[in-house]
């Protein structure tokens, strides 16, 4: 910490750095990671409700079926699927694949498109199976 007045992240956003799909997707990876982490606590809460059964499970089910619960589930699933797909993209970069700029853009658009396709597919099967 030689220079204590050095600029601190994310000082470049908005002023010095023009946002592009690469940086937006990087930012979204963190945002979806935070959302998914919150969802993980929702999973722990749901598992406890299943374990306790009876009243606890009934109220948990009611909450999940409410508009707020459905919104939360939609947000968690969308965030989780994005984080999963973009995470695979990151892992492929880690082993040195697809790191040329055109490929980075292609895989980026693919992740965004597949996020919506996969999330919609999960919800389609879930709602059809549950009906």
């Amino acid at each position: 910490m030689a220079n204590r007045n050095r600029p601190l992240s994310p000082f470049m956003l908005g002023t010095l750095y023009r946002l592009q799909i690469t940086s937006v997707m990087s930012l979204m990876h963190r945002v979806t990671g935070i959302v998914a982490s919150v969802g993980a606590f929702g999973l722990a809460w749901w598992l406890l409700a299943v374990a306790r059964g009876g009243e606890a499970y009934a109220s948990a089910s009611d909450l999940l079926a409410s508009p707020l619960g459905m919104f939360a589930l939609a947000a968690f699933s969308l965030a989780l699927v994005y984080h999963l797909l973009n995470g695979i993209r990151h892992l492929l970069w880690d082993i040195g694949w697809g790191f040329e700029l055109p490929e980075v853009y292609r895989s980026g658009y693919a992740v965004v498109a597949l996020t919506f396709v996969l999330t919609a597919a999960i919800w389609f099967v879930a709602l059809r199976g549950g009906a």
Partner: protein
Amino acid sequence: MSGTKTPDDVVRPRDFRTPVGRARGLGSGKTGTGHFWWLRVTSVALIPLFAWFIGTLVSLVGADLATVQTVLARPFNAITFALFAIATFWHSKLGLQVVIEDYIHQRALEITLQLLVTFACAAGALASLYAIARIALLG
């Protein structure tokens, strides 16, 4: 090499650390790759675990409590869900740690948040394992 003595020479003999490293007195972190590595290990593990987790949950939509408990109590499901919970909370802890390190620049708040994230993720993982064990062992 002789010449004027700096405060460093007076306090202790010369070593090979940089002036900044010496001033901060913290030495090397020694675990620099550990965080990077375990974030990757947990992410690789989570790919198949996520698929099984989502597939199981989707199959349980609309099912009653007894069915949910029976399905989660199956050995393969119970173990997979336990692994999923461990990998998820571990990965969350490592990821949230980086976000806090990068964006929270007030030291006291940063350390408080790091502690909260560590404790919460440990509690979340343990609560999940407890619940899964109770479902699997006690029905």
